[in-house]
């Protein structure tokens, strides 16, 4: 097996190296995204539970702004909106509509940044998923071409002359598929998960805006 790899031609070796790097990177991102998406869902669940169980908004805001980095995405969105609301509330002469509108804008901006961070590297997975089979195929075709060119010098062509070359070339396809299949699965899975998170965040933002509007009018 290792001898097979070692005897491959330079092009095939380069293709295999490229695929190995692509595969390693895609698996790395797969695990990073897996942790990130799971954590985001868990934190959002916990925060929503805490929020709708009637926790004090000021206390919540204090806790979150104390250590932002250990909080979830939804908590940071809430923090951004509530900070904007408090700032405007402390300024005299701002009406309720402006207060809710600007806190909504602040939440929207925070939401977009959070989504961007969550969706980062997903496009890499998509690229690996769609391109690496072709790269592997290229390596295989190249290897088989060499195998058959070697066959041209042999008077008696048997399977034994081409078989090792083809086997070594097919390893490139195997590696391409090994990189592509998990990347495609992970890409589909994570885009779906992140879409669900996005709708969850958006609905929270709408509901929280309503709460803020009520508070603004109450004042």
């Amino acid at each position, binding site marked *: *097996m*290792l001898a*097979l790899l070692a005897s491959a031609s330079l092009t095939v070796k380069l293709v295999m190296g490229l695929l*190995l790097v692509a*595969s*390693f990177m895609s*698996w*790395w*991102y*797969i*695990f*990073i995204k*897996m*942790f*990130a998406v799971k*954590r985001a869902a868990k934190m959002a669940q916990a925060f929503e539970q805490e929020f709708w169980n009637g926790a004090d908004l000021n206390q919540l805001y204090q806790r979150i702004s104390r250590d*932002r*980095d250990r909080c979830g995405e939804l908590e*940071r969105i809430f923090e*951004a909106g509530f900070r904007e609301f408090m700032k405007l509330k402390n300024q005299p002469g701002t009406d309720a509509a402006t207060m809710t509108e600007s806190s909504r804008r*602040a939440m929207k*901006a*925070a939401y977009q*940044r*959070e989504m*961007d*961070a969550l969706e980062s590297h997903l496009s890499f997975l998509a690229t690996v998923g769609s391109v690496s089979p072709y790269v592997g195929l290229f390596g295989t075709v190249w290897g088989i071409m060499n195998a058959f060119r070697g066959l041209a010098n042999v008077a*008696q062509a048997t399977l034994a002359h081409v078989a090792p070359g083809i086997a070594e070339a097919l*390893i490139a396809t*195997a590696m391409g598929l*090994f990189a592509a299949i998990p990347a495609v699965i992970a890409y589909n899975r994570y885009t779906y998960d992140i879409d669900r998170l996005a709708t969850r965040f958006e609905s929270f933002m709408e509901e929280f805006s309503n709460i803020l509007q009520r508070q603004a009018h109450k004042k």
Partner: protein
Amino acid sequence: MHSVPTQPGRLPAAALAILVHLLFFALLVYSVNWKTHAPEPVMVELWQAPPPISNQPAPVQKPQVAPVAKPEPAVPDPDIALAEQKRKLKEQQARAAELLAQQQAEQKLEQQKIEQQKAAQQQALAQQKIEQQKIEQQKIAQQKVEQQKVDQQKKQAALRQLIAQQAQSEIKTESARALSNSRQAALASKQADEQSRMKAEYQDRIKAKIRSKIILPDGLQGNPQARFEVSVLPTGDVMQVKLLHPSGQPAYDNAVERAILKASPLPMPPDPALVGEFRDLDLKFSPNEN
């Protein structure tokens, strides 16, 4: 401004990615090394005798391996034999040279002796001045000299014989070389003969097998001849049948074409060098051929 902290778990993710790849390679190595035992031989039972041969009944299927295994096991390699003969020749020459040197040395010694004797005789003559003695001694000396001459002649004759023998042996080696050359040529031509014979034989076999499958249509008139080009795989399977020259009776053409397809694994010679000549066969068929 809203800042997003970097996502945690980068290092565990990298470790997991490495683990996945190690697993993948372990799987690859294992699955490639899995089948290492050689395939077992396959036993084949012959259910049907091969088709009979029409034209050449006498030299039936001499195994193709024979000419390869045959090459003159009894006769040693001509080169080696030649070297042996040369070596022997050299030894003989060396021996002859030694003999010659010895003889010359002996002759010298004897001549010296004779001279000494002559000197002694002359001294004796001078002292004794007896002519009879002188004559007798001279006679004796002459006799000795003559004897020596005869000896010399004998030796020279022996030498000449030796030289003649050498020449003869040289001639022999020459003839041996020529003989081995001719033998090799004969062997090559024999192999070529064998090959052409095999070719003819298998062409006959193929034709015979096809002919055994022909079902002659009714109402056939005359003796139409159809020419077909048959493309054959090395396994003997018929790949394509092309009618090169129709016989003029479509029913017969169709019958022959069906027969060719039906005879599909055609008999192929076991020699792979010959199989190449059986890729495209040009076959002629006519109903009254046999």
